[in-house]
């Protein structure tokens, strides 16, 4: 049974339909595929945001996401896993990140996608800068993101 992993860090946009098609093609006998897309849309109380700039640590971004996927594979039964994260300039409304996983069990596919997103937001070396009509400022890590990641720590590993 194939268990391919794909991690791509790129400035170009991606097509979620294409990524889903790859997951489906990679694991022809697997019944559950879960995908997630994060977009540069809601900015809370800042109406003048025009987009983002994503800085990253080349080399460490790929290896840290690969390590997260290894952890997910230890905890859940997964087949194909794809993570794509854009870097550089991203305009309001554009896609930032794609996470997808296939599994024989839908619970595993759902959990793995959520785990990968929660950990990516607290462990992978990316830093967001918001661009506004009045200048730029760095986004701060949210306590709620740290709390979400912690949930997975206490659930125990098999």
């Amino acid at each position, binding site marked *: 049974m194939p268990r391919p992993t794909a991690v791509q860090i790129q400035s170009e946009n991606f097509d979620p339909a294409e990524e889903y098609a790859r997951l489906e093609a990679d694991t022809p006998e697997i019944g559950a595929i879960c995908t997630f897309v994060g977009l540069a849309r809601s900015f809370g109380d800042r109406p003048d945001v025009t987009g983002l700039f994503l800085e990253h640590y080349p080399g460490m971004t790929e290896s840290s996401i690969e390590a997260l996927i290894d952890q997910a594979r230890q905890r859940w039964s997964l087949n194909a896993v794809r993570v794509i994260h854009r870097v550089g300039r991203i305009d309001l409304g554009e896609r930032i990140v794609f996470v997808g996983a296939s599994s024989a069990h839908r619970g595993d596919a759902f959990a793995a996608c959520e785990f990968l997103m929660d950990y990516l937001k607290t462990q992978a070396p*990316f830093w967001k800068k918001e661009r506004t009509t009045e200048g730029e400022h760095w986004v701060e890590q949210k306590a709620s993101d740290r709390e979400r990641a912690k949930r997975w720590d206490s659930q125990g590993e098999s």
Partner: protein
Amino acid sequence: MIHVLFFASLRERVNRDQWEVAAEPGDTVTSVRDRIADQLPAFAEVLHQGRVLAAVNENLARDHTPVSDRDTVAFFPPVTGG
């Protein structure tokens, strides 16, 4: 020498994206961080003001993580990807 990298807002505050610092026996992230703070006042300031994370050779590190000559140590703010 230890090769040091700075990212994001930390990079802007110290006004450089890299630095080199001499290695000493028994070095850890803490001792390297303190040595850089002595050399770069802007770095010392940032350390006082908030969380600064570290990676050694591209692996997230803790205060006690050992650091050797020719390692790469990166310092950065809490991450905000995803």
